[in-house]
């Protein structure tokens, strides 16, 4: 590629990031420290820490993040170790299924969890049927505050991220490293703790970081559980009286600082690069065929975890076809009325259309930007390309809520980016918001594609008279198509399920995306939750069709879709 073009791409992407990543964050920070009169103040931040409600929210958020992360590791680590150790029956398919919960909308699943673990829920009904619980005094599993339900739903949604990272780290360990320990007398669990775990720690940390940041600032799930004593929900409710109130901004800043702080501590403790991947693996890993006992253990663990993770969504599906479901294991009466009602409801069809529109446009932006950035980073020697790479990864580390707030602030009336709201239509700002948040996935998968495709293939085309850009489109892009589809699909799914931006930026009913429509239905009276479930099932069906469709295109390697 000629240098001029590379520099142009570099300039455009840096400008894009400056406008839609740095600027909104800066804008939020500014609002938290500047009084309406224009002087700088720390009073807002100080005020926060004097207010017990905000302090409790922060503590709860921290617990929500920490417990979710620990639970995810607890689920994912044994599974990854098993899959790395044994060759068991049905491994390929189980290995793919275990990842599916990542693309099931968690705040829809939260509806299901309420139905299952609530006081009049399925689990209690089951215990009462067995005679293990008094029907007159059912226990409330979700308890006061419902933190347990939130953490459970988050963990069941996010553990695939930990599983992917740990599996990748394990695959990078030269088996000879473990054999050398075995050879010197170190065996079993001792070997796991002395050799294997320390070597995969950076991978574990990478997964844990993403999960922590995600769940620390999770908005959708606590909102559905009506758990308002976490910072994210407090911020969301704070928007209602936004114009005069600086506290939501101050909270956002505290959250951002806390995220960076926890990240640095974690990095210092666990994430130091030990250069484990620099080893030259000489022997391929030969997996042991599982003994009947091991087979049983592996298969049942994988099935159990996948089953548990899908259970909330099964609950939602049942809820959507039930007329009445209270205090019994299965609904008492079945109906398809909710689907018909949902189709007739002004919110639903509109929101499905909106979401498809926003998500496809955002995915398009992602793929174009992602290929451009990955190409500059991998294939050129442009100075500062590592900076571009690091920049493109940053959205993973910044809570969605923080960005959403920034976008809101910078597009308010009278602000320079007011024009991005076309009349009242938030389509431009939503597409940008979705695209920025998911760009890292597309950049990573495109970069992996470029790295795996030898540059000599392109050079051969040029050597035979093909101009550079044409060589790129005729040779390299077709070769990395699978990577691009995988990255794009992940970006699309996450955009369809996006909560923070959708809830905060879409203010008019006719522009609601699916997530906001579901939230509006859940909080409305009457058959709202049933309609919300029906809409949730529609959304899941759409996603399932998309993923399966792509799976067919890509061949049977469904798992490759999730490799980020």
């Amino acid at each position, binding site marked *: 590629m000629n240098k001029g073009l590379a520099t142009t791409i570099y300039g455009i992407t840096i400008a894009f990031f400056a406008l839609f990543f740095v600027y909104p964050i800066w804008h939020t920070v500014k609002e938290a420290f500047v009084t309406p009169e224009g002087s700088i103040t720390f009073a807002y931040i100080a005020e926060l820490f004097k207010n017990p409600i905000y302090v409790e929210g922060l503590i709860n958020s921290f617990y929500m993040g920490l417990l979710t992360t620990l639970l995810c590791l607890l689920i994912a680590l044994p599974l990854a170790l098993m899959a790395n150790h044994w060759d068991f029956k049905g491994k390929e398919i189980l290995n793919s299924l275990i990842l599916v919960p990542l693309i099931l909308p968690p705040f829809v699943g939260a509806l299901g969890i309420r139905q299952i673990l609530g006081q009049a829920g399925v689990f209690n009904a089951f215990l009462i049927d067995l005679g293990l619980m008094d029907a007159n005094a059912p226990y409330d599993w979700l308890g006061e505050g419902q933190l347990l339900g939130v953490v459970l739903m988050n963990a069941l949604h996010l553990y695939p991220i930990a599983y992917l990272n740990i599996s990748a780290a394990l695959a990078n360990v030269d088996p000879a490293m473990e054999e050398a320990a075995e050879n010197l007398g170190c065996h079993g669990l001792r070997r796991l703790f002395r050799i294997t775990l320390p070597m995969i720690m950076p991978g574990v940390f990478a997964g844990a970081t993403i999960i922590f940041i995600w769940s620390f600032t999770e908005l959708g799930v606590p909102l559905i559980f009506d758990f308002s004593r976490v910072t994210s929900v407090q911020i969301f409710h704070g928007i209602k009286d936004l114009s005069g109130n600086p506290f939501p901004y101050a909270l956002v800043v505290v959250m951002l600082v806390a995220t960076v702080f926890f990240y640095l501590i974690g990095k210092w403790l666990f994430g130091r690069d030990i250069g*484990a991947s620099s080893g030259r693996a000489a022997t391929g890993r030969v997996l042991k065929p599982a003994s009947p006992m091991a087979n049983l253990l592996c298969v049942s663990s994988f099935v159990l975890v996948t089953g548990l993770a899908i259970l909330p969504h099964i609950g939602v599906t049942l809820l959507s076809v039930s007329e009445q479901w209270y205090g019994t294991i299965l609904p008492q009466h079945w109906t398809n009325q909710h689907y018909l009602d949902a189709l007739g409801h002004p919110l639903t069809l509109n929101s499905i259309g909106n979401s498809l529109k926003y998500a496809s446009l955002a995915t398009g932006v992602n793929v174009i930007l992602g290929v451009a950035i990955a190409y500059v980073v991998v294939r050129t020697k442009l100075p500062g390309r590592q900076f571009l790479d690091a920049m493109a990864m940053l959205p993973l580390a910044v809570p969605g809520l923080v960005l959403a707030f920034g976008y809101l602030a910078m597009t308010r009336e009278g602000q320079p980016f007011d024009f991005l709201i076309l009349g009242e239509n938030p389509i431009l700002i939503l597409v940008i918001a979705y695209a920025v948040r998911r760009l890292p996935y597309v950049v990573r998968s495109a970069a992996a594609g470029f790295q795996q495709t030898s540059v000599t293939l392109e050079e051969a085309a040029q050597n035979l008279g093909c101009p550079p850009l044409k060589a790129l489109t005729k040779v390299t892009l077709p070769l990395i198509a699978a990577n691009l589809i995988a990255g794009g699909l992940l970006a699309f799914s996450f955009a369809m399920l996006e909560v923070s931006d959708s809830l905060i930026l879409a203010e008019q009913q006719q522009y609601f995306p699916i997530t906001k429509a579901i939230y509006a239905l859940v909080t409305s009276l009457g058959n709202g939750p049933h309609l919300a479930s029906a809409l949730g099932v529609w959304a899941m069906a759409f996603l399932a069709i998309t993923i399966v469709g792509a799976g067919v295109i890509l061949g049977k390697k469904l798992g490759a879709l999730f490799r980020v």
Partner: protein
Amino acid sequence: MVSIQIRGLVKRFGSVVALNQLDIDIASGELFFLLGPSGCGKTTLLRSIAGFHLPEEGEILFDGDDVSQVPPHKRETAMMFQSYALWPHLNVFKNVAFGLEERRVKKAEIKERVEEALAMVKMDGLGNRKINQLSGGQQQRVALARALVVRPRCLMLDEPLSNLDAKLRIEMRTEIRRICKEFGLTAIYVTHDQKEALSIADRLAVLDGGNIAQVGTPEEVYRHPRTALVAGFIGETNLVDGQVAFQSGDDIYVKTAIGELVGRPSDPDWTPQPDEQVTVSVRPECLSIDISPPAQNAIAGRLTESTYLGEVAHYSLSVEGHEDPIHLSELNPRRVIRDTGETLYATAKPEDVVLLPPR
């Protein structure tokens, strides 16, 4: 140190037979080499002795005790891996100390022995280095120290020098032999580099397709290969097929496509009978060149290529009736023949012409 006997060892991977009924005896304190083309089973055999593969059939005896079902961490062997397998999260000292810690050696003794081991491989004072701060040669020494420090019953080396440059390779192989002999170690060394094996082995085994092709000292295997494969794998050779004509004293006359050759069987217990098919092996350095036909073992051919290397000159002759060119090398050449196309004669003494079973 331990002596090792291998009896009828069979190892299969699926339908592929990696080791086929192997028998080997390795004496205590012996530096024993496993050689062979890639895929011959040499690494599989080494890993079976270390316990990383469980054999389907047969026994592995350490001093007479069957260890074939003993897990690797209880065999007290120490392996030096081809990739070194140094743990990146531990520094040099910790890597070397690892095996001693597993053996619950006291702290003070660990320190002493690790420092001693590092000094032995000339890495003293570098204990605090991280693994990724070391050069390839230094990593190789640390890996050797890590294996030696536990005073293993058997030291195993899996192509330990393959990642080093040629000069360092020669230096280190001498060093490995010195250390093995100094401690009287039983050592098994896998390589595909025949020079490494010939230069430092006490004995070596050539493997071929999961079978032992030959076991012997370097001189035995080089001078008296038992099969055409061994002859071709250890050193260079010219192989010609033929049929026995008659015997006269020790000499056996063989009819071949390139003329009558006089030689001796590689196995003294084997006397090929007239009309029996044989393969004849003549090493290039055993052939000398002449412009007039010699009385015996005369091979006439047209010179197709001559290469002058200073201490030696290589010639290739194209011989009528034989597809492959005949290679010969002349040590300390005074005059190099460069006229390609010229007809020349190559000849060898009967004791250098080796008769092998037909290939």
